[in-house]
């Protein structure tokens, strides 16, 4: 959270003759960051980012305390001056004090409760300096009493509230958890309907305060107010947080209560409030101090070995310097030659818990910029490269094969999820989606790629894209199956083009793919134009032509060839080893052979026959042409194969070749009733 700090106000407590910009730079390096320095009239305003653990620094004085420690460490002369009145004795100024009857039903809700009544109050505008300071940080000045409560919050980080004493029925207060549906009209004029368990104060039958968040309108300070209850508390941070979340309503006070309050700072804050009230309206203390403390705060001492400090920092800092830094931050320090013992100041008790926290305090004030910078040494871990390095190489290879990479959301809309026809028991669904556009973890990347083509098809033709991403399949009782997939979609390509590309991919992956008839359930591809891909016995993917349902859903032009390959599975399988074979010494005889087959005769079977009949002379069979034509007959195809006859001891003779060729032709006509074309 950010707070605004006028530099002129900061200088009330930080006596250092140094430019605002320098203070900002040094604070940013060693404490809360000054994100911006804004010039306002003759003053500067710091916009300070305070991390949520530093409740002690959510105030002008807290920032001054930080700055003083940091400047002093940089050898800049600096002094921290406390606000006036922190130690003002809280004793009644009159003989028969007023009383307020306070009951707290659950002390966990309010670890410390203090209040005091002042009378003789004259309501008027605040002095100019208070109005100016409040307004420079964005708070509207209202009147001298209400302004004091805001002023104290900004100055010390302690939120406070003020009631008109005469408006509290029977001068009774009961602090209790709210009941579901109770209502209170707050100072901003809005009626809040409360959840169960918010912290509230009831006088007699009426709620007069939504504690820690905003006071009730019925007991607020008005022009006619004469007696004021000054009210300073700590509340249970979790309860305040939950109430704010439930109401979707948060105030500056609530934000500070949520981070936790310095219990020892409560009475000084009340004293300061009384001091200011006396200053601005001549008020008198009209009651005893009411101070109800549920938990006695315990002093906490942390020990830190100097050796450990050195091991963390990579450099030795002297004991004197260490002690000085901690002292400036409010720690009471004792040292032995090996160990520092530091008593944590009350305002840091929630934050500083272990020796590593002390290390941070010392290191940051010493200055991270003063620490050396060294590359680490030591052993390189065992284990070596993971598969993911291969994924980067694969992506680059695909780029060089002319594919364009897309990255789309892994969370998809219900409609897209349904398009994949994934079974309900396999669905990975978000419990708290942001919008219906992002509701399911996708079980396939292909629907997203189809969408990408749809969105770009008016810009470019024949889009060819890929994505590498995980897909998600529910796995009852365990985490979903999350395998890394390579998906490719290629508009206006046919089956053989995508198959060829897949074969290229497997050459890059150093695995040998087998394409087989698809046997599983398939909702993405055309039934007759799809193949499953295996490496060894493992199913590793699918390729084919996307079905009409997907084409129609996205209004795609033409057909889309696609594949989805499971890289997680493939990387588990062994790569093939490239081995040396001698380059043939004697030239080969190469000849083409054409024959007419039935259209449904598979080329794999034809080639297998050639290899069987031609062994061992036929070393290589390439398909160089396939065509269909009415002239060669209905449901027929002509296939031209290029055969390589080769021997290792000499060039094959014409006679040898003829014998083998005849065997092959014979096998063709026997097995496939093929007719040789001459």
């Amino acid at each position: 959270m950010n707070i605004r700090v006028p530099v002129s106000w900061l200088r009330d407590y930080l006596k250092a003759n140094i430019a605002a910009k320098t203070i900002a730079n040094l604070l940013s390096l060693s404490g809360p960051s000054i994100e911006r320095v804004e010039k306002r009239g003759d003053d500067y305003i710091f916009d300070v980012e305070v991390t949520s653990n530093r409740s002690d620094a959510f105030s002008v004085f807290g920032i001054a305390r930080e700055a003083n420690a940091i400047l002093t460490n940089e050898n800049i002369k600096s002094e921290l001056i406390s606000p006036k009145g922190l130690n003002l004795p809280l004793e009644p100024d009159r003989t028969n004090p007023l009383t307020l009857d306070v009951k707290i039903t659950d002390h966990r809700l309010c670890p410390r409760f203090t209040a005091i009544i002042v009378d003789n109050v004259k309501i008027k505008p605040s002095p100019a300096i208070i109005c100016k300071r409040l307004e420079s940080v964005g708070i509207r000045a209202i009147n001298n009493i209400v302004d004091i409560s805001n002023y104290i919050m900004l100055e010390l980080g302690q939120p406070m509230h003020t009631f008109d004493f005469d408006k509290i029925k029977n001068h009774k207060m009961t602090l209790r958890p709210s009941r579901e549906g109770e209502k209170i009209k707050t100072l901003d004029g809005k009626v809040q309907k409360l959840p169960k368990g918010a912290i509230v104060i009831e006088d007699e039958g009426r709620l007069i305060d939504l504690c820690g968040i905003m006071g009730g309108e019925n007991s607020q300070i008005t022009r006619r107010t004469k007696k004021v209850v000054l009210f300073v508390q700590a509340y249970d941070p979790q309860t305040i947080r939950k109430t704010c979340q439930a109401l979707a309503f948060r105030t500056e006070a609530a934000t500070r209560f949520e981070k936790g309050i310095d219990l020892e700072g409560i009475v000084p804050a009340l004293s300061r409030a009384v001091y200011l009230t006396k200053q601005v309206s001549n008020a008198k203390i009209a009651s005893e101090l009411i101070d109800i403390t549920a938990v006695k705060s315990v002093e906490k001492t942390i020990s830190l070995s100097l050796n450990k400090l050195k091991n963390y920092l990579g450099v030795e800092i002297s004991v004197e310097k260490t002690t000085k830094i901690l002292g400036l931050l409010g720690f009471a320090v004792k040292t032995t030659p090996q160990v520092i013992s530091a008593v944590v100041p009350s305002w840091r008790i929630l934050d500083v818990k272990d020796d590593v926290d002390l290390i941070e305090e010392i290191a940051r004030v010493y200055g991270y910029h003063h620490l050396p910078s060294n590359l680490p040494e030591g052993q390189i871990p065992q284990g070596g490269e993971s598969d993911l390095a291969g994924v980067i190489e694969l992506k680059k290879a695909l780029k060089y094969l002319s594919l364009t990479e897309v990255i789309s959301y892994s969370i998809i809309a219900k409609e897209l999820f349904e398009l994949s026809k994934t079974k309900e028991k396999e669905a990975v669904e978000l419990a708290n989606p942001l919008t219906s556009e992002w509701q399911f973890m996708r079980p396939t990347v292909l629907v997203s790629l189809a969408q990408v083509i749809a969105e770009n098809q008016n810009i470019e033709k024949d889009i060819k894209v890929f994505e590498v991403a995980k897909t998600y399949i529910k796995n009852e009782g365990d985490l979903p199956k999350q395998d890394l997939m390579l998906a490719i979609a290629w508009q206006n390509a046919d089956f053989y083009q995508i198959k060829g590309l897949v074969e290229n991919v497997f050459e890059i992956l150093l695995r040998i793919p087998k394409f087989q008839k698809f046997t599983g359930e398939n909702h993405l591809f055309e039934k007759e134009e799809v193949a499953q891909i295996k490496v060894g016995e493992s199913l590793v993917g699918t390729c084919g032509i996307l079905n009409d349902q997907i084409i129609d859903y996205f209004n795609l032009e033409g057909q889309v060839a696609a594949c989805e390959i499971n890289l997680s599975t493939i990387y588990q399988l062994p790569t093939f080893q490239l081995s040396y074979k001698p380059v043939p010494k004697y030239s080969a005889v190469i000849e083409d052979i054409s024959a007419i087959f039935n259209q449904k005769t598979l080329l794999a079977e034809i080639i297998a026959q050639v290899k069987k009949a031609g062994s061992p002379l036929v070393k290589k069979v390439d398909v160089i042409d396939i065509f269909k034509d009415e002239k060669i007959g209905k449901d027929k195809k002509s296939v031209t194969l290029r055969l390589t006859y080769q021997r290792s001891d000499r060039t094959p003779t014409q006679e040898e070749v003829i014998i083998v060729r005849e065997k092959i032709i014979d096998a063709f006509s026997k097995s496939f009733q093929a007719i040789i074309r001459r």
Partner: protein
Amino acid sequence: MDKEIKKLATHARTGINSASVLADLEKIYLEIFGKSGTFTNLTKQLSSIPKSKKPKIGQLLNEAKKEIEKTFEQRHNFLKKKRPKEFIDITAPGKKLKLGHLHLISQAIDEIVAIFSKLGFSLESYPEVDWDWYAFESLNMPKNHPARDDWETFFIKSAPKPHFGSQVLTPHTSNGQVREMEKLKKPPIRMLNIARCYRRQIDVSHTPMFHQFEGLFIDEYITIANLKGTLNYFTAKFFGPKRQMRLRPHYFRFTEPSFEVDVTCGVCQGSGCRFCKSGWVELGGAGMVHPKVLEAGNINPHKYTGFAFGWGIERTIAIKTGIGDIRLLYQNDIRFLEQF
């Protein structure tokens, strides 16, 4: 004999010079010098002539051979050079093969991995749908801790598991920390995790899915100085040697001390401008691994220390390229993708 030689030479010259393509020329050459070529046949006769005439005839044959070969050579060169010369407009576009494009995110990942792998880091992968335990609890972020509000987490519809809690979409890559400790069992650890992360937010600088990268380094005697050294090495390589890096105090539950990592602004080179905060741009978070996190991963915090760092890939791309709206990265407009 000498007449025959002269006749052959003349005949050969005419033949060679009449050849109009290289193939014909080769054929004529073979007709003369081949196994049973005219010239070869003539040399065969040399053995049958009287000894006294041999040197003379031999010399004539040699001269004739040289002459024919010279003619052949000239004709060969003539025919070879016959390819017509055309005017070439070297400014006309070439005929390129088509290349594809790598997404900016992948390019950044590639660069980052290359830099850190030189320091012995290896890229690892962990679940993106993970248990609450790895995403929060083991990282010193107990349930109901306000720090967890910042992460705006997506939950998965599923029954929670004892000890591990609910299933969440990882809001950061830090879920890999304890997983890596469990995997390796003991240091040294030098891990890089680059993954898709998810948070419930969308605006100019946030998309519900984004990429984060994270480094984890655990060993004996690892110091803040080592963290500085490592990050200085990275920023100099990734952003260039002119950019400076600094650490500022910050707060994360899983590191102590914690830092915000800044680099000098690339637009103003550190003098301060409207794109940066007083000359600096926030890059990401870092810190010394919290002893409680080491304990959660069964690593003895009294023996080992370590550091972790991580930030959004989109952010580094924005810092490096000046893309203002990171949602562009996921719109997959082909005109955008093809720029890189």
